[in-house]
C-alpha cells in the first residue's frame, strides 16, 4: 500500500538517503533498521512530509503523496511518533489525543467563538474517541493530567494513542522502545501487535533487535543512506552484510 521509489534526500552536500525503494504490505509491521545516521529518521520525515524528498516518489494506495504538505499527508492517513517524544506538553493527555481526531470535526472560528451547540456535540464525540484510544494504550487514568507530568515512556504511549486517533492507515514509529527496560519493551511489542490487529499498517524504527525480531513481519535495512537488505527477520539476522554493518558480533544482539 505504501511504496517508495528511488527516494533520495540530501542536506547541502550531504546525502542522507540515496535511491531507496521498498513496498509496505497492508496490515504488516515493517521494521526499518540500520546504523546511526543511516537515514532512518530522514526516511520517516520524507514519508510524513516533514521534509521534501530531493528525488523519488512515495505513493500511498497508488496516490502520490511526496511533495504534499505535512498536513495533507497527515490527512491522507499517515501518522507518526517522534524519536524524541513530542507531546503537547502544556495540554492535558486527553487533549493531546483529541488533537489526533481534530481533523474530523468542522466547527470553525466563528462557530466556536459563539459557542454554537453543534460544536459541543462534536467535542463530546471526539472526547469519546480519545478516551477509547487512551484506554487502548492503558493511560485512561492519566487522561486529565498535564502531558508534561508524564514520564518519557508514558509520553510515548500518548503519542501512539494520538496517532491512532487520527484514524491513520499507516503509523510510523521512531524508536519507541528507547529508554524502556526489557519488561516494558515486551509490553510495547504487545501493543504494536494489537495495533496491527486493528488493520493499521506499522512502520517501526528501533535499535533493540530482540524487540524488532519479535514483532516485525518484514525488515528493511539501511546503511549510509542506501538500501542494504530487505526480508523476513530470519533472513535479515542471518545476513552477513547486515551483521557487519549493523549488528556487530551476534552476541550483542
Amino acid at each position: 500500500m505504501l511504496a517508495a521509489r528511488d527516494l533520495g534526500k540530501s542536506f547541502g552536500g550531504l546525502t542522507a538517503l540515496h535511491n531507496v525503494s521498498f513496498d509496505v504490505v497492508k496490515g504488516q509491521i515493517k521494521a526499518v533498521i540500520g546504523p546511526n545516521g543511516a537515514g532512518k529518521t530522514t526516511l520517516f520525515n520524507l514519508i510524513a512530509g516533514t521534509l521534501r524528498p530531493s528525488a523519488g516518489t512515495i505513493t500511498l494506495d497508488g496516490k502520490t503523496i511526496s511533495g504534499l504538505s505535512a498536513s495533507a499527508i497527515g490527512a491522507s492517513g499517515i501518522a507518526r511518533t517522534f524519536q524524541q517524544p513530542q507531546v503537547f506538553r502544556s495540554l492535558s493527555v486527553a487533549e493531546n489525543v483529541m488533537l489526533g481526531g481534530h481533523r474530523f470535526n468542522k466547527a470553525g472560528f466563528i462557530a466556536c467563538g459563539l459557542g454554537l451547540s453543534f460544536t459541543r456535540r462534536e467535542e463530546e464525540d471526539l472526547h469519546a474517541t480519545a478516551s477509547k484510544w487512551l484506554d487502548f494504550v492503558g493511560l485512561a487514568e492519566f487522561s486529565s493530567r498535564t502531558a508534561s507530568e508524564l514520564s518519557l515512556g508514558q509520553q510515548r504511549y500518548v503519542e501512539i494513542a494520538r496517532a491512532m486517533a487520527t484514524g491513520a492507515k499507516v503509523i510510523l514509529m521512531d524508536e519507541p522502545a528507547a529508554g524502556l527496560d526489557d519488561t516494558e519493551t515486551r509490553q510495547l511489542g504487545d501493543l504494536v501487535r494489537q495495533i496491527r490487529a486493528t488493520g493499521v499498517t506499522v512502520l517501526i524504527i528501533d535499535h533493540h533487535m530482540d524487540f524488532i525480531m519479535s514483532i516485525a513481519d518484514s525488515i528493511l535495512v539501511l546503511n549510509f543512506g542506501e538500501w542494504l537488505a530487505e526480508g523476513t527477520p530470519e533472513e535479515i539476522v542471518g545476513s552477513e552484510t547486515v551483521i557487519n554493518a549493523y549488528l556487530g558480533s551476534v552476541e550483542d544482539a
Partner: protein
Amino acid sequence: MITDLAQILITTLTVGSMYALVAVGVSLIYSATGVINFAQGEFVMISGMTVAGLYGQLGWPLAPAIGVALVAVLLYGALLMVLTTGLARRTSLIGVLIITIGASIATSGTAARIWDSDTHRFAPFSGDAPFWVFGATVTPQALWIIGVSTVCVAGLIWFMRSTMVGKAMRACSLDKSAATMVGIPVQATVMVSFLLSGLLGGVGGIVTTPLTTVDAYSGMLLAIKGFSAAMLGGMGSIVGALLGALLIAFIETVTVTFGSSALKELPTFTAIILVLLLLPRGIVGGRQEAGLQHEDLTKQ
C-alpha cells in the same frame, strides 16, 4: 554620478557603523542570554550625555570625560544584567523584554531630570572641516565613527569566534544547565556580555554624538533601529548584526538620494520583511529545514 556613488558609500558606512554599534550590542546580549535588550540605546545616550556634559559644558579634558562615560555604561550594564537575568529568573522572554522597556523608560526619564531634555553635542575630535573624496563630503568625525566601530566589531567577532568565552556565551543562551554542566560559570559569562555590550554602546555614544547630537530620549529610537538590524542579520550573530546594520543604512541612503527622505523607512522595512521571507532566520541564519525547535517568547 560618481559623486552620488561616493556619497552613498560614505553615508552608508557612517550610518551603518552607528547602527552596527547598537545592533551588535543587541546581538551580543541576545547571544548570551536570549534577552532582547530594549534599553540598548540607553548606553549610547548615557555616554553621549556624560561626555557632552563634562567635556562639552563643564570643559573637562576629553579623556577623563570619556573615562567617566565608560564607567557609567559599565555600571548601567551591570544593573541591567541584574534586573534581567539576576532578579527576573522565573519570567518569560517577553517579561524580560518588558523589564528592559521599563528600564529604558525610567532611564530616559532620569536622564531628563539629571541633565535636561535639551539636545546636546560636543565638538568633533578632529574638527568640523570636511574634505572631499570624488566630490562626496567626508567629515573627520565620520572617519572616527567608521574607524572605531570597525575596530570594535572586528575585535568582537574575533572574540566570539576564537575564544572559549565567546563560545561559552552562545552556550549559555542555548542551554543554561548544559552550560553549567560543562563548567561554564553562567552568571559571570552573562555579565561579560552585558559589560561588553555596554562598552560598545558607550563607545557609540562617544563617537557619534558630535555628528548626531544626543538628548535624554534618543535611546529608544536607536534601540529599535538596532534590533531591526540585528534581526535582519540573524539574531545572535555578530557578523549578521553588522551586515544588517550596513544593509539598512544602505537602503536608507539610496532612498534618500534618489527618492524621498520622509519615506526612507518604507523601503527599509519592506526589505526587512522580504529578506526574512527568503531567509527566515536573517541573513546569516539562513534557511531552516523544518525542525521541531520552536522558540516561544511568552513561555517561561
